[in-house]
């Protein structure tokens, strides 16, 4: 009910818990850049996960004699160096780019909430040790450790893939794709949760000393209930903001790694793979670089504007000018 919230006097937000979110939503709706960002994000998701299956082409279907076709009625964005439909390839690659980023972000959020929540709630020496570990890991150069860790996991998964196919009966195609995507996802998440843990820890540590949490303790509520009913809902704002800004950075990392050949590899494709191919055929066909790059950058833009808008909406105190 955004209209009701808009009409309600400002003290209503102090009385009803839910109206914080309504307030935030109202502020977000006023932010045109953020709403445009949200629209683009939704559009990209719909295109990649719905339009992709409606289009009649297969992303790996080779059409000899029709290489580098210009945009036209059958191939809306034309074809690539093997006559494959570029639009379908972009949407298909987008599925993996988005999937890796979103799944890694979800892992990051879960790990960060668990780790940071425990550290902040328990406090004391455990907190000090846990946060020292986070500080140490944060000091490592992100891309370098991600590359090494990915290499490690993917080596073992490749070894295991024979076993997965022959003993567990997994389909060969699936294992081939999985053994390429999963290590990258896991490696990004394995070093990506640190900042989230820090944010959650700061929030939790601050909330533990608030009067309403002390009151809950005094009432004798179990820890689990205090954590899930009183602390978690109160720190969702910063978590959501940070998660929204994490997705584009993970999309960027995935593409960077794929571009230098240490990420997604054919037969999988992703935006990074497409941009790499585009860069290789720059001389003969510029659109193969420009169109995927445009979609890629537009997505990053949209996520960043949405994240900034969410920050302004959920945390009006931090919003400046």
């Amino acid at each position, binding site marked *: 009910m955004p209209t009701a919230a808009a009409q309600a006097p400002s003290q209503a937000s102090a009385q009803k818990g839910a109206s914080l979110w309504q307030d935030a939503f109202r502020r977000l709706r006023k932010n045109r850049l953020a709403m445009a960002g949200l629209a683009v994000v939704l559009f990209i998701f719909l295109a990649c996960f719905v339009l992709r299956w409606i289009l009649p082409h297969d992303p790996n279907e080779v059409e000899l004699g029709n290489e580098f076709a210009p945009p036209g009625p059958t191939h809306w964005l034309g074809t690539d160096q093997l006559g494959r439909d570029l639009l379908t390839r972009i949407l298909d690659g987008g599925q993996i780019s988005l999937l890796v980023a979103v799944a890694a972000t979800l892992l990051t959020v879960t790990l960060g909430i668990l780790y940071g929540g425990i550290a902040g709630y328990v406090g004391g020496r455990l907190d000090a040790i846990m946060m020292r570990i986070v500080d*140490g890991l944060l*000091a*490592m*150069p*992100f*891309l*370098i*450790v991600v*590359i*090494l*860790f990915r*290499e*490690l996991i993917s*080596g*073992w998964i*490749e*070894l295991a893939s024979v076993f997965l196919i022959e003993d567990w009966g997994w389909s060969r195609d699936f294992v081939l794709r999985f053994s390429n995507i999963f290590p990258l996802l896991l490696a990004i998440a394995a070093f990506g949760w640190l900042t989230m843990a820090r944010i959650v820890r700061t929030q939790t540590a601050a909330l533990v000393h608030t009067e309403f949490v002390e009151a809950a303790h005094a009432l004798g509520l179990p820890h689990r209930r205090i954590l899930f009913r009183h602390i978690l809902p109160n720190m969702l704002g910063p978590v959501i903001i940070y998660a929204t800004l994490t997705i*584009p950075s993970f999309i*960027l990392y995935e*593409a*960077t790694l794929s*571009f*230098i*050949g*240490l990420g997604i590899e054919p037969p999988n494709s992703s935006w*990074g793979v497409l*941009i*790499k191919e*585009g*860069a290789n055929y*720059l001389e003969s066909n*510029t659109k193969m*670089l*420009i169109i995927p*790059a445009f979609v*890629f*950058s537009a997505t*990053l*833009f949209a996520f*960043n504007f949405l994240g900034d808008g969410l920050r302004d909406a959920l945390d009006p105190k931090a919003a*400046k*000018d």
Partner: protein
Amino acid sequence: MLRTVVQRLLQTIAVVFCLVSFTFFAVRLIPGNPFADEKAIQPHLRERVAEPFGLNESWGKQFVLFWKNVLTEGDFGMSTSLFGRSVNEIMATAFPVSLTLGAGAMLVSLLIGIPSGVVAALRHNRLIDYASMVLAMIGICIPTFVLGPLLQLWVARNLPWINVAGWERPSDIILPSFTLGLVVAAYVARLTRGGMLDVLAQDYIQTARAKGLPAFRIITRHALRPALLPAITYLGPAFAAVITGSFVVETIFAVPGMGQHFVTAVTTKDYFLLQGLVLFYGTLMGGANLLVDIVLAAMNPRLREHA
């Protein structure tokens, strides 16, 4: 002050040690070995090939020997992928190249980032402010691997004195440095603008204005120094971004620097080259962060007195 520096120095050393140890064991835990090519090598032959590198020893022995050689002789071992070349030799030829590229990128980022941030703050909420912030956002959202090929296409094709790729003429430094520096410039511009806006709202700037000082003097003498603090804080991470960005940029522009060696060392499982490069990168990044902290403390009188 000295105590903080020593403390941070010890932390940096600990981090670098952990990083290199992680690398050491991670590369050895990856199934396969540096000599397993597409062709299968018979085990006894592989052992003979691995012998001079000391790779038949236990990991613990190798670990101790590696650190002993590094610390006592500065010897990083031999490369297993580039036969007959030592890691020291490879890094000695590649480092000046990467240093030139990195310095160029940092120069580009500061020369573009700081002035545009200052101008944006001075024209707050006017067209030029929005324009430069949108440009900064574009700089952040267009990654190096898109910008690089585009510059090759649009700039190198049209200017005869600029090569598409390679590292032979002095003019070859321009495109890679620009590609690498632009993302950093965008962040620097945003941070400088934010810092400048904060400072311009302070009372002492009002006082300086009230005294009738010329605007240029107020900005350069009173506002700029504190306004640059956020951007300087960012220089540590920026340095790391330039190093990892070089993996991409050196590939695009065929620059024979350390970034390219890192990428090939990963794919060829070149244990010693990887260890050496990671140790080198870790030390550089830690050193840069330490330097930034010291500069910050020196620039901020409040921090200086407290420490």
